[in-house]
């Protein structure tokens, strides 16, 4: 009989009473053809083991008497063999006592492509063959996972804040009615737009192959961010004697055209690079002109989160463009198509425009309003300038960037 490379002792355990719990993992540790010796004093195992081996396609090599026990020899069969390398001896580095997703990704990097038949198996697991194909459509690294996605996820986890307790809600003081109404209108607008940033990424998460799980994890932090923003914006609108304002048809049409997107890269580009990018300037404007510290604080916090989303979108688009230059045309086309859909939508929604003006004017005195109006015009200019900068950073030419920025929705998002 051949020599065994592993020996296990199952004592009197019957096949269905614990023996398999020792035998199966021991066989799994062997290469195909590797031989295991099983010491057993269970008489029924003499008949049970050959049948079990037949069912599982292991090779039962025989049995010999050793003192009071049987020594069964089994060669590991090749059926049902999990695919992939065995993970062994991994120890993630501790960083100030913390384990970071970025180190996980560095240890088990993203493969260029992923197989839909590995289903929901975590990256690194060995996968038994024969599973069904899952309906993932984002199966290519360069279309879904920018290299710094795990760092962004780590940052997002560390930067979470609490909409109940982190805002000094008690410090909000009564405001003149026109100013409070303007705040309510702006909060309505912000919440509505953030809803689109909640809905659009969520529809892609289930399409992403789990081999790129960090992307789903990052997007989940984005969903939590958007939820918190919606929460604080709606609370602010109702915290101080005001209430919600109007949802404009322009905003609705603009966000509808975002939600209809079916391509992940186009969505990252239109939502995160152009939309959320433009929102950074809007949030900064509201922060600069906020009538009280809690309002300034909550938009400041939202802006910090949005900066991360913009970073993800930029990183995604830059990486995708670098690996597939044909994407320039497609993204430009997506912007043009959306602009064509929105060509009747008009300018910045009137209620938003007026509220931004009143906010910057800090009231309704004519002199203040004149200043507010100038500030608003300046905001549109700043938004355009910064969009162009972001587009150039993403990899577009200055001319392309000018054109794309001009075509961007008057709704900001």
């Amino acid at each position, binding site marked *: 009989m051949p020599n065994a490379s592993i020996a296990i002792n199952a004592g009197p355990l019957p*096949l269905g009473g614990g023996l398999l719990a020792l035998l199966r993992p021991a066989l799994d540790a062997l290469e195909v053809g590797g031989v295991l010796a099983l010491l057993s004093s269970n008489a029924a195992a003499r008949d049970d083991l050959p049948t079990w081996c037949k069912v599982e396609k292991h090779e039962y090599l025989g049995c010999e008497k050793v003192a009071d026990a049987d020594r069964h020899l089994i060669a590991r069969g090749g059926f049902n063999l999990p695919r992939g390398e065995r993970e062994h001896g991994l120890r993630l580095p501790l960083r100030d006592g913390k384990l970071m997703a970025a180190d996980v990704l560095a240890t088990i990097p993203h493969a260029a492509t992923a197989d839909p038949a590995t289903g929901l198996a975590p990256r690194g697991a060995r996968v038994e063959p*024969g599973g069904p194909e899952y309906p993932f459509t984002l199966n290519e690294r360069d279309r879904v996972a920018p290299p710094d996605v795990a760092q962004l996820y780590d940052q997002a986890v560390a930067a979470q804040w609490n909409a109940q307790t982190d805002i000094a809600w008690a410090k909000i003081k009564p405001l003149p009615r026109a100013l409070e109404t303007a705040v309510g209108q702006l909060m309505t607008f912000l919440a509505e737009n953030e809803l689109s940033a909640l809905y659009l990424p969520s529809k892609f998460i289930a399409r992403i192959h789990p081999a790129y799980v960090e992307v789903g994890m990052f997007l989940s932090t984005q969903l939590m961010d958007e939820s918190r923003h919606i929460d604080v914006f709606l609370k602010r609108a109702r915290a101080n004697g005001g209430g919600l304002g109007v949802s404009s048809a322009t905003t609705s049409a603009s966000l509808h055209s975002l939600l209809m997107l079916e391509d992940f890269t186009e969505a990252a580009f239109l939502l995160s690079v152009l939309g959320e990018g433009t929102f950074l300037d809007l949030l900064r404007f509201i922060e600069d002109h906020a009538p009280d510290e809690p309002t300034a604080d909550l938009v400041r916090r939202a802006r910090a989160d949005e900066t991360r989303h913009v970073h993800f979108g930029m990183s995604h688009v830059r990486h995708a463009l670098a690996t597939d230059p044909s994407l320039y045309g497609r993204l430009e086309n997506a912007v043009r198509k959306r602009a064509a859909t929105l060509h009747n939508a008009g300018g910045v929604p009137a209620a938003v425009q007026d509220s931004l003006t009143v906010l910057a004017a800090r009231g309704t005195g004519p002199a203040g309003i004149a200043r507010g109006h100038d500030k608003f015009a300046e905001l549109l200019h700043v938004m355009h300038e910064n969009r162009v900068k972001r587009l150039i950073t993403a990899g577009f030419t200055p001319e392309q960037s000018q054109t794309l920025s001009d075509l961007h929705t008057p709704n900001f998002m």
Partner: protein
Amino acid sequence: MPDETILLGAVAYDAKVVPIWEGIRDHFREQNVAMDFCLFSNYERQVESLLAGHIDVAWNTPLAHVRIRKRTEGTSLSLGMRDSDRDFKARLIVRKDAGIKKLKDLEGKILAVGSRDSTQARILPLHFLKKEGVDLGRVKQLAFDTDLGKHGDTGTSELDVLKALNEGKAQAGTLGDLIWVLEQAAGRIDTKKLDSFWTTPGFDHCMFDALPTLSNAKAEGFKKALFAMKYDNPKHRRLLDLEGLKQWMPPREEGYASLTAALDDQKYW
């Protein structure tokens, strides 16, 4: 023009039989072998239909197979079997508290047995026990004649035997080796209560049968497409798992000798 489509008969012992044969039919088509199937509710009707030439191939239990062999005086064609059909065995399972130390101790005890047309749960274990010297006239048989006509395919009577043993309604019981091991591997056997006491010699199980008049083209086409199924192919694997095999094997006849002898002895032709 004769119909080139191979018409296969199978018994609908379970709802999964439909997806199994639809899947295998699709696989045959991919192999450019035209095949269709019809389902019978029992093996007796399937045997008669094959003999009458209504179907080309019958997917038969061992009992149906040896009946075809006998009725065609050994001239029928055997086309293939599952890996799991070879060296099938039956078990005598006993309650540990029944005090059974040797096979003769069965006399005076209650022995749970499966359906009378189940090769593994009744016909062969009783045949082999008799050959071992057990006086079956002195053994009280608790019979579970469930799903008659299905020749034990459903396994229901074997699970009934296990249940009777578990509940103490019998001190010993007979069932197929496969159910015993699979139920153990799934963690469903109370090994503190039950033990496998004895195992029968090996015998073979199901077979694809055809009449000697089957055209060579159909016989070869059938075998070509059947043996092209591979467990590593996920589409095939789904079907093979459902049908309970990992590999189709060529036929062999020697594994049915004990069943033929048992049927002679039990006069159960």
